[in-house]
């Protein structure tokens, strides 16, 4: 079907850059739109600009799948899907019009609906990726049920480009909900948590739940009547979709802090109060903590309940951005990296030192 996206295939040129870097023992920093340059440890190496490798390759609404080159702007993809009343159910945060599909997949960041519909990796059906020798490898495909070979395509989601250069990605898309109703209830987190305990245990049409500044914000999505009934049951104050857009794209004032932790914990975890501004998203499973405190107390608090914490923004010096791995897992990460990128060309150190 026709697409609105400019189309350009730079796969061979990108592969040649990779082979050249491998030969020279050089490093490449993979760049899409550059909108998430702040995320992760500092980039090392020459920029490999993937943004010119763009265009929708196939979109079949009745198959619920879209395949596009990694440099395609994510906004163009979402606009195309919206024309057919479909969407990306993982609602990735988008930090600017330059943001690309490849960057969204590599960063692996999922939006407010994560606990209800799934993560980025849950919607990746297949990828073509350049390995560290510049070979284009196709993993997965365009169908939902596919267990041939290791799920290397899902592995690419959130790998921060450390395992290869994404060339194209096939995503499962979903129908837009027939109706959506955001509302807010005045209550503290403790009361909100109890409300969520009840709601999560029921098959209700919910696609978002966050708490900030003494208000529990709920987004009801689904068939009209179910949404209307739940809204009537909950009461509260109607809101607009704007606050959910602001949450998703992290433009809420509290999420713009210079030093921001992303704390990923069990939804029901009680963490010690440490001060600082918090936004409890994902019904409590993802907590944004704006805190000027140096050190990694949020990481220790998260670990104590089986979770982890990422210094999403504002790491200084040699501070670890991501929670350090147990030694056995770290060794396994190094071996996996070496299997796909033996010369260490891609994004060295972006996730962990020495990876």
């Amino acid at each position: 079907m026709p697409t609105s996206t400019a189309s350009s295939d730079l796969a061979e040129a990108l592969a040649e850059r990779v082979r050249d870097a491998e030969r020279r023992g050089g490093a490449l920093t993979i760049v899409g739109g550059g909108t998430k340059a702040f995320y992760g440890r500092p980039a090392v190496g020459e920029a490999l600009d993937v943004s010119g490798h763009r265009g929708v390759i196939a979109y079949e609404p009745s198959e619920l799948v879209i395949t596009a080159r990694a440099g395609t702007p994510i906004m163009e993809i979402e606009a195309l899907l919206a024309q057919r009343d479909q969407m990306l159910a993982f609602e990735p945060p988008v930090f600017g019009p330059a943001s690309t599909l490849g960057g969204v997949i590599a960063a692996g960041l999922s939006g407010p609906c994560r606990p209800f519909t799934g993560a980025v990796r849950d919607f990746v059906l297949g990828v073509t990726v350049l390995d560290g020798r510049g070979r284009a490898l196709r993993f997965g495909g365009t169908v939902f049920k596919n267990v041939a070979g290791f799920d290397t395509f899902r592995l690419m989601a959130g790998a921060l480009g450390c395992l290869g250069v994404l060339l194209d990605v096939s995503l499962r898309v979903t129908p837009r909900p027939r109706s959506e109703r955001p509302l807010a209830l005045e209550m503290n987190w403790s009361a909100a948590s109890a409300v969520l305990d009840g709601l999560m245990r029921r098959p209700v049409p919910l696609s978002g739940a966050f708490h900030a500044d003494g208000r529990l914000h709920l987004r009801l999505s689904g068939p009209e009547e179910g949404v209307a009934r739940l809204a009537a049951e909950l009461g509260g104050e109607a809101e607009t979709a704007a606050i959910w857009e602001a949450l998703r794209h992290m433009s809420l004032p509290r999420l713009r802090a210079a030093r921001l932790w992303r704390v990923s914990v069990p939804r029901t975890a009680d963490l010690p109060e440490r001060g600082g501004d918090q936004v409890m998203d994902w019904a409590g499973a993802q907590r944004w903590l704006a805190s000027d405190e140096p050190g990694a107390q949020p990481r220790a608090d998260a670990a104590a309940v089986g979770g982890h914490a990422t210094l999403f923004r504002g790491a200084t010096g040699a501070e670890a951005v991501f929670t350090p791995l147990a030694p056995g897992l770290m060794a396994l990460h190094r071996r996996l990296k070496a299997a796909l990128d033996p010369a260490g060309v891609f994004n060295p150190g972006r996730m962990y030192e020495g990876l």
Partner: protein
Amino acid sequence: MLDQFDPDVDPTFVSVDRAALIARLKAVLPADGLLTTSEAMRVYECDGLAAYRGLPGLVAMPNTPEEVTGVLIACAELGVPVVARGAGTGLSGGALPFPGCVLLSLSRLYRILEIDPRGMTARVQPGVRNLAISEAVAPFGLFYAPDPSSQLACSIGGNVAENAGGVHCLKYGLTVHNIQSLEVLTIEGEALTIGGAALDAPGFDLMALMTGSEGLLGVITEVTVKLLPVPVHARVLLAAFADVRHGGEAVAAIIGAGIIPAGLEMMDHLALTAAESHVHAGYPVDAAAILLCELDGAPHDVAAEMERVAVERARFWAGRKGAFPAMGRLAADYYCIDGTIPRRRLPDVLEEIQRMSDAHGLPVANVFHAGDGNLHPLILYDANTPGEMERAEALGGAILELCIAVGGTITGEHGVGREKINQMCVQFSEAEVEAFGGIKAAFDPRGLLNPGKAIPTLARCAEFGAMHVHRGAVPFAHLDRL
């Protein structure tokens, strides 16, 4: 047949002193935890793909994760291959013993360790049966969503190893979408925690890699599954079609209208008549195909969606909810194939399968997870007729290659196992197979875990590839390709 391992194109290992191995394993296993005689091991010679058989060297049956560790350390030190086995219900020969292997049965690790109704998770040992989880959490109004048709017998460890799907995965996802963490042992006996208590974990998404890895990367000793609230209401519609093409169009229309049914299943004429004579569900046996569409949710929403679906196809009428019927009464033997195709290719593919069925002289009944494009052609044959098994195997291979040719995959949910090892060489390039081998080696450098399965050797692909053209134009030249 593929149950014979070939030293030229399958992995090989130096033979070990059996007595020494027995002594090592006896030291770490309970008194009744080691089988050594052919008679005792006979039950382990095959899994659900009963046409492929072979005896293991020994069978180890540990009671605890610590004993599993002991078995793995002993095997790693002596260089003995290990084939992990759950309930043995797999349909691709994934638990087929490798010659001389230690078959590691995990069925005695069957405890539900913890149910967290508030956090909506359950922590279970790998031998716990799939259905037993849903039964145990039902008092809390919860269930574990993936429901492979063997869910009464199959174990959660095997489900993770195969990334099992089921009738309802169109709406609720595969195993990978419904698990939160794994405790895994490497072949060296090193314990790894994959995933965690939160919705994600730092580092690479090893959960994605481990799920569906068919016992090649590690041995699962514990699984934390996510639980969902039980839908309050479910109804099934049945639609009959005068030809299969219209059925396929109805599927596209339902999904295109923005409805994701909990289940969407199609049966062709041969399958539905056999099913009707078996379960007497009231299927219209004069139809060319029937479609079962299950909708769940709140009663009013289900009613509204039912109306919308009914508008899509005027010939829908209320049917009955039923378990997907057992198909074993169709013939003396049947061979279940498991490809996935883009849904829109269904009519072409079914016509092509009919042509191939005629050419091979074996009937094929089609059962189809229509919503997600997962085909289950059932090849009917009689193993007592000389040559029929081999013909069924050849027809199965041809159907899988057809699935690849139309842009699909050789396995939607049963796994590659031993059965589809050659077709891996068709679906993937040499560089891709090599990459899989590299990932395998990152976990298991000596290739001791489940050798000869899931990922072919490059030597096998070189030999098999001589007969086929990879992604080329030789087979199915008359079909459009992706």
